[in-house]
């Protein structure tokens, strides 16, 4: 199971990093989403992998660590909110400049200035 989870995190991270390094906004946002999934699974696994164990401290030897589960919940909420924000801002930038490159494009900026001064 460890191998499966570890390679899952690895594949998600690799795909995320590849997409983040792309030129345009949409793949980059998908990439950050993949990275946040990877980190969520990673956080979950940081409390050791257990199956069918209660998430509380009892006299029993085996238990599932509940703290990473709380951390993952927080991380999921935050990353979901952040992804929504970046989608909105990126959409605003794309509609304003008719260009969805992440980095500054000289020509595109000129167009943006023209559009702004025309308004």
């Amino acid at each position, binding site marked *: 199971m460890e191998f499966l989870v570890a390679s899952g995190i690895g594949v998600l991270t690799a795909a995320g990093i590849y997409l983040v390094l792309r030129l345009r906004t949409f793949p980059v946002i998908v990439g950050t989403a993949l990275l946040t999934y990877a980190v969520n699974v990673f956080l979950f696994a940081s409390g050791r992998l257990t199956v069918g164990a209660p998430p509380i401290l009892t006299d029993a030897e085996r238990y599932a660590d509940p703290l*990473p589960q709380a951390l993952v919940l927080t991380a999921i909420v935050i990353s979901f909110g952040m992804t929504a924000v970046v989608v909105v801002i990126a959409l605003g930038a794309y509609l304003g400049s008719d260009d969805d490159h992440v980095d500054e494009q000289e020509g595109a900026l000129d167009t943006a200035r023209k559009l702004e001064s025309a308004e």
Partner: protein
Amino acid sequence: MSHWIVTPVVLPAMLAAIIVLLCRHHPVLQRIFALAGSGALLAVAIGLFVQASGGTITLYQLGDWQAPFGIVLVADRLSTLLVLLTAVLSIFVLLHAIGTGWDQRGRHFHALFQFQLMGVMGAFLTGDLFNLFVFFEVLLIASYGLMIHSGGTKRTQAGTQYVLYNLLGSTLFLFALGTLYAETGTLNMADLANRVAQIAPENSAGIRTAAVLLVIVFAIKAAIAPVHFWLPASYAEAPGPVAALFAIMTKVGAYAIIRVYTLVFPPELELTQGLLEMWLLPLALIGLAVGMIGVLGAVRLDRMVTFAVIGSMGMLTAAVALFTAEGISAALYYIVHSTLATAALFLIVDLVEEHRGSRGAELSTAPPIPGNSILAGMFFVAAIAMAGLPPLSGFLGKLLILDAAFDSPLVVWTWAVILGTSLVSVVGFSRAGSTVFWKAAEWEERMEAASDDPATQMDNVATTPEAPARPQPILPLVTIGGLIGLIVLYTIFSGPVSRTMTATAEQLFSPEPYISTVLDTPGKEIDYHGDYEEDGDGGEDHADEDQGAGSGDHGAAAETDGDTAEEAH
């Protein structure tokens, strides 16, 4: 248990909610609430600072849960110093935003401003690493809103980059926290300090990875050399007052480096020996050089100031990277100075940009703007402070850093880069000042002299109508003057100030009182109604740490506690 420590977090949070929900359509009420809130925040910050200045470390247990099970806020010298700095900065920035009318150019400026303050204050006060992450996110999400305040395509594009970069930084932060938790089973900083010290050297791979991941995350926030690229575009495109407020945000990264690498991974710890010494100082020097060369090469005033920010962060990190008490104390002196100087410069540039019409912040000569001579004088003083020329505090801070670097193996490089970049930045600032202010004053004379020449006349006709004749509002000038007065005061009182900083650094380098205050203060008594015995409350804190929320049964304290914990989660 005194509740004052949590006030800097709760007060802005409540105010932001009030501003959004109740005074949405009442700009005057918004301003009154925001100003009153910032004033109260300043009073509380002064109180906390005075309380901690005697060397006492005050602990606040959210929900009354004992650390490391619950989240704690800790007010020691370093935290309260930075809380006070933030409160002071926020007053000036708020007054400037109101005076220039920036706050009415889009919606929810004041609410976002308060949320930003809440995040910064929380990041400075928290004693828990995951909580630090949460407060980072609070301050970031507020900063996204502030950064694209009043809109515009260029600003939104820069905002997209900024958000994406910080999203990646946050993801990396979570990876670092996961590694740290997997290795130690705790995220409370004091508890971490104890547990990291117990890790055997042969099992150190994971913890060393976590240590390096964390410093990369904080370096992104602090804009240290190879990960500084997000800063110029976003700070230059942000509205002036917002950029001035952001002057404290890079310092949050620097604060986190100082805190974690004196408390959790102290320099004498064998486990992480040689991890940072190798490359943090050279990178800081590279950042300093990049920043100051950027000041020289910038073609716009706002870009110039952003590169000055990168340079000053490089200088600051160079002092931190020495990891000695002298280095940290010099860095702390420099933190306060550079925050005030950067904020003043951003506000001045904002006024210049406002009044130059379509020329904006370009580094070119234009007709003089209203209040040209006053602004020129203030730019002169702020630039002297930023470039580190005598007699202002930038010079003293630089001297302290040079002095602290004396025992470093890289002393020659440090001295050479710091002194060389000073010269470069002086040239850059004086070129900008003379182009924008000095030549502008001669503009009218030249225009009269050249009126016979049809070519230049055409040129003049093309440019002069853009110059707006609006008079300069008084309030922004007063706030900038106040900031500059503060820098002068800071220089005059640098004797007592640097003694305070030395005491702060000494407190950081003897963390035992901090650790014992956090871990040994008892929390609330818990009645175990279940059938298992209370056997797991001493060492086995694998179980429940961040359980502060929802403990609403604690009398008078319950309301504030529950609110903060909810915000924090």
